[in-house]
């Protein structure tokens, strides 16, 4: 029952995009999001779509996975569109139905915001689908390490994220086991009203917390036994390296920016 939960949606295949340095992918994703907000004319989204399609094609992700990534957002998208459409004001009225006026500017705004949201979600999905959580935290750590100057605990943050991600499947398995054990004692997790259900969670949550604390203690002990003392002076097994692919990726991004900015200068 609980085993169906998937967290982190990494899609493990080998592709040029998967092989990119995680730092490149994080920076490119940020640049892509900025680019999405720079598109001032509707036709410019064609370039953005082109860039995204290229990335998806090269990453060998099934296109339906990218499309599916906006599904959790569908209600927000509809709201964004409707609100902008009906409540925007402008100068050119397209048509009116009774007291409701649809303005051309409102329609443009609605399209802009909806498209931006869609591309924003799709773009970040490419990042999480092509980068394993551990690699991603590695990249974040390296990117955030200059902030150590202002006492930002970059290494500790990354280590906590890695450990949290590592233990999600373990805890899911544990929860499944405890749930079964309590079910065997006649516990009922599935029926009753809200209060009854909340109370039914106690026999599941207490043992789960106990075991999580026990595991945390064990892990801390095991890390100390292997002389872990924080990030200071720690070297890496997989050193992040900027390769030719990363340079090409940045050049393609530069081309996208050029295409988006040209109409402003001309």
């Amino acid at each position, binding site marked *: 029952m609980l085993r169906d939960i998937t967290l982190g949606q990494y899609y493990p295949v080998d592709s040029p995009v998967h092989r990119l340095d995680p730092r490149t992918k994080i920076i490119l994703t940020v640049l892509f999001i900025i680019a999405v907000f720079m598109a001032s004319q509707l036709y410019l989204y064609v370039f953005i779509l082109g860039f995204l399609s290229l990335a998806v094609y090269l990453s060998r992700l099934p296109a339906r996975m990218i499309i599916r990534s906006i599904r959790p957002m569908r209600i927000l998208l509809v709201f964004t569109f409707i609100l902008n459409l009906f409540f925007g004001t402008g100068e050119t009225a397209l048509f009116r139905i009774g007291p409701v006026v649809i303005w051309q500017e409102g329609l443009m705004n609605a399209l802009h915001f909806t498209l931006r949201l869609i591309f924003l979600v799709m773009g970040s999905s490419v990042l999480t689908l092509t980068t394993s959580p551990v690699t991603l935290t590695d990249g974040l750590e390296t990117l955030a390490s200059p902030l150590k100057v202002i006492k930002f605990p970059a290494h500790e943050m990354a280590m906590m994220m890695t450990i949290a991600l590592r233990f999600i499947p373990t805890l899911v398995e544990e929860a499944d*086991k*405890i749930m079964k054990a309590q079910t*065997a004692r*006649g516990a009922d997790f599935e029926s009753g009203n809200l209060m009854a259900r909340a109370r039914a969670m106690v026999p599941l949550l207490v*043992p789960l917390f106990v075991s999580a604390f026990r595991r945390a203690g064990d892990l801390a002990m095991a890390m100390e036994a292997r002389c872990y003392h924080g990030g200071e002076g720690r070297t890496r097994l997989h050193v992040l390296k900027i390769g030719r692919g990363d340079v090409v990726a940045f050049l393609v991004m530069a081309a996208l920016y050029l295409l988006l900015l040209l109409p402003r200068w001309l």
Partner: protein
Amino acid sequence: MPIVLDKLTHIYQQGGPVATTAIEGIDLVIDDGELLALIGHTGSGKSTLAQHLNGLMKPTSGRVLLDGRDINAKGEDTRRLRFQVGLVFQYPEHQLFEETVYKDIAFGPKNMGLSSEEIDERVRGAMDMVGLPFEEIQGRSPFEVSGGQMRRIALAGVLAMRPRVLVLDEPTAGLDPRARDLLLQDIQRLHKEGTTVVMISHAMDDVARLATRIAVLEKGRLVMEGPPEVVFGRFEELTRMGLDVPQGCQLARRLREIGGPQIPDCYLLESLADSLAAFLKGGGGDAA
């Protein structure tokens, strides 16, 4: 009123890319009053099989019959069934959650909807069965007692439901020798008092001592089944499957190999000692 397994098959994530067959075509009858030991290598499907016995897992195909009724049939009350077939998981102490030992053991009977007098009687009875001193321990937190006691509290939590069949998944794993012996004595006593017991175990000497029948699983299939002397007699096959045989059998075999006393396989150390004693009294070399 036996439990009948009829061509029981369970496939994990059927139809998915990583579908794995855990158990396949198991035909097995668990008779009333027997102590059946399930043995097999890690991943042979023992635990999966055990979880089918009280309907926690649903078979992909095949049936589980209790008193001749398919427990997974539509309209069967699986919750009532779970009170009849008690399942004690591996490391059952991990499921303790209540503030006091008493409340934790009472969890099962309470779910059965019993009166508080009946619950009280059952909690006392169950603690007595596993040798826990009621007055001393009932008010304490289940998290502050010893590991062996935690295990027995968890076992009492299942026994308090008075199941007719008790299914134990590696009940002695991780216990020290003393706690292990105490727990095995409890299990043996329960069996003598008429509870049907199904026990998964890797400790062959325990199996040899307790089991009235042994079923051997390999890669999800039932490959051997019979009384201990028959199953442990098939020494080579068990060894090939990566399973142990009791020390008594190993020693007798080794003695025969090196041309020592030619005594038959004895799966109990005690009977091996008797055979050896008889052999030595008989004057050495000639005895068969």
